[in-house]
């Protein structure tokens, strides 16, 4: 019995190592096309493995679309891109029913799927669409299905939304509602590349032909890794720690730091706590470890929670950032 258990445990360790190796290979492949941005790539893959969605924030021209397109090609998933504009309607995303004739000459309404029916949806400049259009994604993102004309249609599995928004151009934009922000697993800040990275980008893109990414994973393997990550055991103390962290982001919580009480309007939701634990598991897997730890939680905290907490007027006026508040929370809340 002991030998069986040992063998089984060795297999599990090997599985984790293989998953980490596969993801690392994927990142390496993506970095053949995308210069730098390794944390962003790792964050996007974390969201993909967790079954969540990513909101990328960065100025235009940083390679966000290239990144998503390359990822879709590398994992052999269907990819669609929607450029959000103010006149974009929900039907433009979800699809619409059109009058059509079948072969027998019978006319009827036929549902024409929108771009949302893809494994990877790139919602470019999502904050330029009206709230009505933005809300069209709510059900798709959370339930992985859409409902039009009274009919519910499942979206392809896996379904992964990558939204981008430009932090500079605020004229004529519609900030995302809190409910939709909460549905994004991570919000990642795409930083401007360093000088060396920029030189490398110039070398790669101004030549004869840029290198396309090649497929190195498929959807089934992706789902296997997703299951593997979810199967990792979590120490109970880690769950307690995450719960205390999330509770401490609420201004009226008894153990909230003074900064939270003073500058926050509301704190992270339970979905944020779920995101923290799940992201910590994936982070541990990518580090070839068998369980998430406090350090994993702290690594993913600043990607999973900043968009889930809202500053009040005083915080905005004082120029307080959510990251500063979360650092205060981490400093105060101690694990068991």
């Amino acid at each position, binding site marked *: 019995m002991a030998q069986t258990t040992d063998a089984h*445990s060795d297999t599990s360790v090997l599985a984790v190592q293989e998953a980490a190796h596969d993801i690392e290979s994927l990142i390496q492949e993506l970095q053949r096309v995308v210069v730098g941005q390794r944390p962003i790539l790792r964050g996007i893959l974390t969201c993909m493995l967790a079954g969540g969605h990513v909101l990328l924030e960065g100025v235009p021209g940083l390679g966000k679309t290239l990144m998503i397109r390359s990822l879709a090609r590398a994992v052999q998933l269907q990819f669609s891109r929607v450029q959000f504009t103010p006149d974009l309607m929900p039907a433009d995303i979800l699809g619409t029913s059109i009058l059509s004739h079948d072969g027998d000459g019978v006319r009827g309404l036929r549902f024409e799927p929108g771009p949302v029916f893809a494994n990877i949806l790139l919602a470019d400049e999502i904050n330029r669409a009206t709230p009505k259009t933005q809300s069209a994604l709510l059900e798709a993102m959370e339930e992985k299905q859409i409902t039009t004309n009274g009919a519910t249609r499942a979206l392809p599995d896996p379904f992964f939304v990558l939204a981008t928004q430009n932090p500079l151009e605020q004229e004529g934009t519609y900030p995302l509602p809190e409910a939709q922000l909460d549905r994004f697993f991570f919000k990642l800040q795409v930083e401007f590349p360093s000088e060396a990275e920029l030189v490398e980008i110039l070398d790669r893109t101004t030549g004869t032909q840029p290198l396309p990414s090649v497929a190195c994973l498929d959807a089934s393997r992706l789902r296997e890794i997703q299951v593997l990550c979810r*199967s990792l055991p979590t*120490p*109970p103390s880690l769950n307690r720690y995450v719960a205390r962290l999330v509770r401490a982001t609420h201004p009226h919580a008894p153990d909230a730091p003074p900064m939270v009480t003073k500058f926050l309007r509301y704190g992270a939701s339970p979905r944020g706590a779920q995101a923290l634990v799940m992201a910590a598991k994936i982070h541990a897997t990518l580090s070839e470890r068998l369980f998430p730890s406090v*350090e994993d939680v702290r690594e993913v905290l600043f990607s999973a929670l900043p968009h889930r907490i809202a500053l009040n007027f005083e915080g905005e006026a004082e120029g307080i950032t959510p990251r500063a508040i979360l650092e205060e929370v981490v400093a105060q809340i101690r694990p068991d």
Partner: protein
Amino acid sequence: MSERRVESVLGPLLRIARRRQFLVSTWDHLCRWGIPVLGLLTVVGTIAVRDLGAPAWWLLCVASLVPLAATILARRSLPSPRALLRHIDACIRSDDLLGAAYEFAAEADASGPPPTTFKGAVKSSILRRASLRASEVSIPSVLPLRRYRLRSADAAIVCTLAAVVVLPPLSLPRDRSATPDLAAKPPASIMAQDTGLQDRVAPLRRELTDLRARDDEVSAIASAVDRLLETVNSDDANVERARDDLDRLAAVLDELQRTSENAADLDPGLLEVGLREVAERLRALDEGRDVARDLGELDPEGVARGITHALRSTPADRNDEEGANDMARRERILRRIRDGLDRAIRRNTTTPDRLQDLERRLSRASKTGDSRAAPRSPEAQESREKLERLRRQRRAEDRARQRLQDLRDAARRLGREGNAARPSLHPPQDLPTFADGQNTPRATAGPQNRDQEMLVTGLSNAVERVSRSQRMARTRAIIDEAKRTLRRLAKDADRSPSMKAHADAFARAARGPSGLEGRGKTAMSVRDASDVTAAATPASSQEALRSREGRGAAEGSNGVSLHPPDGDPVAHDADEFPNQRGAPLTGARGPGTSRAVTIHEATQQGFANTPYDDVFTDYRGFAQSTLDDETLPAAQRDAARRYFRLIQPRK
């Protein structure tokens, strides 16, 4: 490998780690505050035990509380096993492996054998890795003892401790130049110092050191008193026993004193006067200064040796100028001795007057049939005893005067014989020389030697007699003071009420029987030069309040007591203390003037009209001078200060 086994591997690690953590926490508490507190306690304890007489066991008990408190605090601040393992994981960089294994092991124990699922397999793998890692952990390296670093507070404590150890005790030496303010509240340190019995008796024991120097009965008694004071402690039974022993020693000393007086029947007071006069006159001579010093120090052998040396004769074969100088020196010394003795012989005492007065009063009482004169009445008994005492005193004075006359006559004869035998500086050639054995000096050598021997022996005996008398008096005074100290110890608890009663009594006495405008009966006297208290006692006699400018040597009411120039300016009452009239003959006599106030009776005609502020100032000045001059125990100083605080004038 089962979870139980992994738990059994983590168990020993946890136990060792917890013990080590307890040790580290305790040491950490000691480093942070325990050692500085112990240092402070050491400083306080050193002062308290050495200077204030606090019991050492009490301080040890207090000091032992510090490590005990550190232990309790360390136990209360012990981290949970999970936190401890998290700390170990952080130290060995095992990514929380041991901590997670601890949690998973606990889960596995609670839920039975692990399932053969992926999650169960992962847990098994974690436990196995943790067990391997736990066996490699070196607890001392992950939980090291903190190194103690010296801080500024530690340096301050060490310096203070060194100062306390190096510097002498608070009570010794006392700064005599600092004049205590009678109206000021006494320092707390002195109040605390009073609590030590040994500190109280320390001045007495130092005084006994001189008295134990010789090999006689007085030294034996002084040694016995010293041993008794050395072994006495604050225990009630011990104090009571010590007081009984002191009473017995006082009785032995009294008996010795009586025996000595009966054997010699010489009044030591008059002998002292004679010796003092002689010493004063010899001090003016270069060749007599050594003798004067020996007289002052009451050294009989030194006196005999010095006078013999000073009166050394010129060899018979010397007939030159040096011989003449020797003769002149002899003559000067003998003349000074004669003059001093003459003055002492002419000195009158009040004993004859008082004897005559007492005899007249007794005679008058017997004639008038006064009931107090009945033979068996206590008053008559007391009067008879007083009469007998005065008669004995007069006989002793007569004999002492006779002894001084004998010495003076011997000195006179020596001088006369010396003049008669003085050779001429230029003798005629026909006169016989000293060498032939037929000259006059040779003829007078027998009586001259006899007179010189008589003079030397007489002065030496007088010194011996006075010295013995003084030593007995000082020993008796020390015994009395020791008894008072022990008695005060028993009354320490209610000292404040007694002090208040004392002040009230003095205030009543100062007001007098008729109030502020009346004629009071208050008397203030100092009973003994070595006594430490200025006792305010009512007395029936009415004497003057005398104040005079002098050189520090004050005379008492009877005129026979001598006082050190810088010491007690109050005279002894020969009637009350016939055997305690001795006092040192010499002292530092500075050229400046000093004010000595003798208060025998605080009230006299017109006293009640004096503003109370002035009276208070005089009284306080008197007590202040006593405090300045005498080596008083701190408790007595405090009593005097408190007393004057109580009676100071209030606006």
